[in-house]
């Protein structure tokens, strides 16, 4: 534990000298850390050059099986040749501009809403943005009006489906989770019991079971001739599942707010909802940003589980492409690496945004 304050005062010398000091302080400050550092460097040398060789030097982008057979490295040609199948699934080929546009709109709204969150004045625009955006996306995806041909949602797939499932999931799970968290803390026994039972039951089963029930069992309980759309069932399953987890995250936040705050609200004569909205929730929400984003990220990745009910999210369209022609099947590593890169892009952005948001919202405390 060398503290910066203990270093000799005055200029620290050239940048190379500073680097040596930094390395000594952080990488070689004990024999154990020195071994770890050397070991890690060796591991990187061992892993990275073969990866570059496989992924870049010896790889090909040419979208043909013949070209892929000739190279020893990665066959990015598989991704190149099937890019539209991977990104949009079985959506009719000539209409694929529609999911593309829907995706642009969706990402636009998401970025717009996220950008607005730290600024109190702009927050009121978030809900109207979604109220306009969701119908636009629905019209683009389904069609059937404005001269767009109707496309059943059994044809939706790829990145748009992943984004729709997760963003709609988050939007609906968030308020539901908040209500459940408040319900669990409620002094009314009926509401409290209901919330506890709901949360514990949902948290007690894996998402895959919820989806399986929604997809395989639920239709059997409906009256004859009534079918609820497969996608809708999956979406509702995801919402109900995520809400239970978010409820526990929010409860943690609510419990971290000292009791005095509740009492202060009461003594000011505020009603329950007023004190929640004005005093408790703003504090609680700020506390739970990291675990909430954690929930969102895991939920974004969990949407890939819809594979078990035959929906084609981004991961499953990779599989679809692998099976489009048996000759491509052996290039699955490339396909999954591509999907992983896209998932990483989204999840990492979410994590960075959470860090930014925490900093923004803490500005008040730092003053």
């Amino acid at each position, binding site marked *: 534990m060398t503290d910066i304050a203990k270093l000799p005062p005055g200029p620290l010398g050239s940048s190379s000298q500073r680097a040596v000091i930094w390395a000594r302080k952080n990488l070689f400050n004990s024999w154990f850390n020195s071994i770890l550092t050397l070991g890690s460097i060796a591991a990187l040398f061992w892993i990275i050059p073969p990866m570059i060789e496989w992924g870049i030097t010896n790889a090909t982008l040419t979208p043909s099986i013949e070209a892929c057979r000739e190279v020893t490295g990665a066959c990015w040609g598989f991704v190149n040749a099937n890019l539209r199948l991977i990104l949009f*699934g079985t959506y009719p080929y000539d209409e694929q501009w529609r999911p593309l546009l829907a995706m642009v709109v969706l990402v636009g709204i998401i970025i717009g809403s996220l950008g607005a969150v730290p600024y109190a004045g702009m927050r009121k625009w978030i809900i109207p943005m979604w109220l306009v955006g969701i119908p636009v996306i629905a019209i683009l995806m389904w069609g059937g009006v404005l001269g767009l041909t109707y496309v059943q949602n059994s044809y939706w797939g790829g990145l748009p489906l992943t984004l729709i499932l997760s963003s709609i999931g988050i939007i609906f799970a968030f308020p539901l989770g908040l209500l459940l968290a408040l319900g669990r803390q409620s002094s009314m026994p009926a509401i409290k019991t209901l919330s506890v039972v709901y949360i514990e039951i949902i948290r007690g089963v894996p998402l895959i079971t919820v989806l399986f029930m929604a997809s395989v069992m639920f239709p*059997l309980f409906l009256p004859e001739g009534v*079918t609820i759309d497969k996608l809708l069932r999956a979406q509702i399953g995801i919402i109900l599942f995520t809400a239970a987890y978010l409820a526990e995250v929010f409860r943690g936040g609510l419990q971290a707010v000292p009791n005095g705050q509740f009492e202060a609200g009461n003594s000011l004569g505020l009603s329950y909802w007023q004190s929640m909205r004005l005093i408790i929730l703003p504090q609680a929400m700020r506390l739970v940003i990291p675990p909430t984003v954690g929930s969102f990220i895991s939920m974004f990745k969990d949407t890939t589980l819809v594979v078990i009910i*035959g929906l084609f999210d981004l991961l499953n369209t990779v599989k679809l492409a*692998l099976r489009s022609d*048996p000759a491509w*099947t052996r290039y699955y590593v490339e396909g999954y690496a591509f999907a992983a890169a896209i998932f990483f892009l989204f999840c990492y952005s979410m994590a960075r945004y959470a860090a930014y948001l925490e900093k923004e919202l803490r500005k008040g405390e730092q003053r």
Partner: protein
Amino acid sequence: MKMKTILAAGAMSVAAIAANNAHAGAALDGIKAKGFVQCGVNTGLPGFSAANAEGKWEGIDVDICRAIAAALLGDSNKVQYTPLTAAQRFTALQSGEIDILSRNTTWTLTRDTSLGLTFTGVNYYDGQGFLVPTALGVSSAEELDGATVCVEPGTTTELNLADYFRAKGMSFQPVVIENINEATAAFFSGRCDVYTTDASGLASIRSTMAPNPDDYAILPEIISKEPLGPAVAQGDEQWADIARWAQIAMLEAEEYGVTSANVDEMKGSDNPGIQRLLGVSPGMGEALGLDEEWAYRIIKEVGNYGESYEKNVTAKLGLERGLNALWTEGGLQYAMPVR
């Protein structure tokens, strides 16, 4: 165990629904009203049903649905596809989410009866086999005593494997791997001596995944019967008839040598069988409740069974006709007479 209970409960509820699903003509009327056939297909099995690079469904199972649409609705494109997993397929059919299930489904007694299905034919005769490296020096499955076997956990594949080895008094070590890519990778890296799945699957794995296909051989023993075919829900016999005869028409056309290319010319044929099939001498369409051009459209738009097989199974998987050759050529495919 838990899974079994759920499935059993599901099967019972399916049967219950099937029982009160019995007013005739409901399925057919529904299809005519919406103007397309909702067809349940595999989420991706090359040659049977898989999306091509443009995202369009292709395969012999897909062609069945196209043939039915051509016969019933006059256009082979009036089909909407619902990709289904193995677990979902029967529920989807019974709940009315799909009109026909054409998803490499094995025709068995229990499925035909207690699940409330009507199988309308067999469009592919498959069976479980063994793939081995030639270096193993084995020429018959009976020499596999003590072998390590890579197998995907499935409904029947694993069971058949155990049954076969027990019946022969041999021992084996299963290596159960859920994902087909990992399972085949394990096999080709030498993790196990034998890979087992349906023969059609073995052939495609050998031709597409093997480092060198000649180093691997499929053993002659086929240890199970897997007659794959389309199924509809019980309760609408006319709909089942149309599905059944649309498939038979494709076979009958092959028997007569009628193809998508020569069907127009064949309309002038003197052969009374061809005349009946193509509606030149009327009666067949009327009996099915269709117009007389029904089979003509199937052959014109989809092709006969042999064409469909060539285009999908042979082209994608490199599989010869084998058991699926016409009965006149030593296979099992036999068309009931259209008369």
